[in-house]
């Protein structure tokens, strides 16, 4: 086994490709006089560099899917952006997802593509696969019909798909093929940025590694940046350069993958890592007590405090800011004491 990690070199000078600042996105609902506000994304700031894979980890209803949808500009009411901004930098040109919608629409697929969760249903069931490529990509490539077709075919071949799939309908393909196909579709224009939502969750165990390798390979070849979410920590371990841990709508920790796994700074992250089972190890894992927070009525102060073994009085009243520490960022009043313990 290899023990040394060869990190993809990340240039420090280059401007980040994505800047999310103070982003708040809430579900605001009103049903027959019952008003509800769910703070799915609550004051999240993060930046993503060029040629970097950034993984967002979190559990169900932690707001991680809402966060990635908000970044992609893929939200529909009742989810609304309340505050903050999402800005991409494509080739030196800044693009605000919510302030420059038409320019954003034109940039989609050329600079920014998306891999959706559940590849089973992302292709139009009544049209052939080739039409999807044409609809999404043709206008960005500046090629003739024939050249375009040749380009798509060679692209598919490179990711291990028979070009004949172009002539089939989605229902004629297997789940693994469809997932490959959507990755092919997302990368055919060689965009600078790819957003992926649970890219392996629906797949069988045996093909997961292949798909992850495919994502990593395509990213390395094109030098794109990827942001992806999944609850599966092993996927983060396998392909992420950096990880952001989301709890109750907030980013509670961020750092290099190796650091997060080996030296977690937030008690929640520490617990998450410690509870992961692995083959060859039957030592008892302790589960986290309490219940996940309700985002419509989140706990005061630090949102993790009701479940936190290290909580002190201050945690109950004051919300800890996300601050730089040890080459990463963490939001915990007792972060310093964690290492001592």
């Amino acid at each position, binding site marked *: 086994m290899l023990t040394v*990690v060869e990190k993809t070199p990340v240039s420090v000078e280059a401007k980040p490709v994505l800047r999310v600042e103070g982003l708040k996105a809430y579900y605001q609902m009103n049903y027959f006089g019952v008003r509800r506000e769910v703070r799915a994304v609550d004051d999240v700031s993060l930046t993503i560099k060029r040629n970097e894979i950034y993984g967002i980890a979190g559990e169900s209803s932690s707001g991680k899917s809402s966060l990635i949808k908000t970044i992609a500009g893929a939200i529909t009411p009742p989810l609304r952006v309340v505050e903050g901004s999402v800005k991409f930098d494509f080739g030196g040109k800044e693009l605000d997802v919510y302030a420059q919608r038409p320019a954003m629409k034109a940039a989609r697929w050329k600079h920014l593509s998306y891999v959706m969760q559940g590849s089973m249903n992302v292709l139009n069931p009544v049209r052939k696969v080739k039409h999807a490529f044409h609809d999404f990509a043709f206008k960005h490539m500046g090629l003739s019909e024939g050249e375009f077709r040749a380009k798509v075919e060679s692209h598919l071949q490179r990711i291990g798909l028979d070009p004949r799939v172009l002539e089939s309908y989605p229902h004629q393909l297997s789940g693994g093929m469809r997932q490959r196909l959507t990755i092919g579709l997302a990368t055919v224009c060689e965009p600078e940025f790819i957003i992926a939502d649970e890219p392996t969750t629906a797949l069988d*165990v045996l093909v997961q590694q292949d798909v992850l390798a495919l994502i990593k390979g395509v990213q390395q070849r094109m030098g794109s940046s990827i942001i992806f979410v999944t609850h599966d920590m092993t996927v*983060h371990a396998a392909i*992420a350069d950096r990880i952001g841990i989301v709890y109750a709508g907030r980013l509670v920790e961020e750092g290099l993958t190796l650091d997060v796994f*080996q030296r977690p700074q937030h008690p929640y992250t520490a617990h998450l890592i410690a*509870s992961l089972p*692995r*083959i060859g190890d039957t030592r008892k*894992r302790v589960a986290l007590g309490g219940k996940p927070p309700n985002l419509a009525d989140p706990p005061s102060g630090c949102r993790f405090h009701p479940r936190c073994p290290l909580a002190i009085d201050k945690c109950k009243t004051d919300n800890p800011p996300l601050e730089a520490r040890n080459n990463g960022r963490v939001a915990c009043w007792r972060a310093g004491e964690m290492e001592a313990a």
Partner: protein
Amino acid sequence: MTALLELSDVNKDYRIGGFLDRSTLHAVKHVSFTLEEEKPEIFTVVGESGSGKTTTARMILGNETPTSGSLRFMGKDIAAIRSRKERLAFMAKVQPIFQNPFEAFNPLTTLDYYLFSTARRFLGLKDKAAVEAATDKSLQHVGLSLAEVRGRYSHELSGGQLQRIAVARALIPGPKLIVADEPVSMVDSSLRMSIVNLFRELRDNLGVSIIYITHDLSTAYYISDRVIIMHKGDVVEAGRAADVLGNPSHEYSRALRNAVLPPDPVIASAIIREKLRAF
């Protein structure tokens, strides 16, 4: 030793297609294993989707009948259970845990309805106080109490809590066997281990045997006594968990074992890089 559950040469075929182009799908082929009554254990069936593991679980629960072979629970043929009375007697001894705790409870029904219904029907309790006492006792086993559950709806609780309530409900009639079909695949990882640990406690403290159906090798390794690995209806490997999962011998089991990424960035990223080189 008497057998609690005995599967001998169980086969299940499904006929698919219409009346003109029937074809047969062999979902389960020649499955045999025995669970001893005196020795409660966690018996794990590992497989991917389409391996026949869920069909096996459904046959054990009496929801499907085998095409051939027999399933005997405490000496009685499960497929021969016909009357509602016999069926209730069987269900009192064999109870299921379902995959998705949010789906296992009707979102428009309070959770206690399931608990009280079980106590009434299987324990024959009529008195409200007795029903509540039995329910509360069961909830205590899983670290909850009736006060926390009464009048609640499924959306008010977490997946982990719901799955505990489902276990508590299954425990009310005092079962000998619990069949858990992918019980933690929809539960958050921070809560997952609480369910898995609970299975251990049930085995050790209450003497309940558990058939754990899963695709997740890591938790299977963590809690199982014995394991079988199924692939396209066949049992490809069977034995002690540490042997089968720690050091698989069959080609498919090895592939499955190798497909599991460890929660370790050093090793996991190396595996992916290795794959990449092969492209």
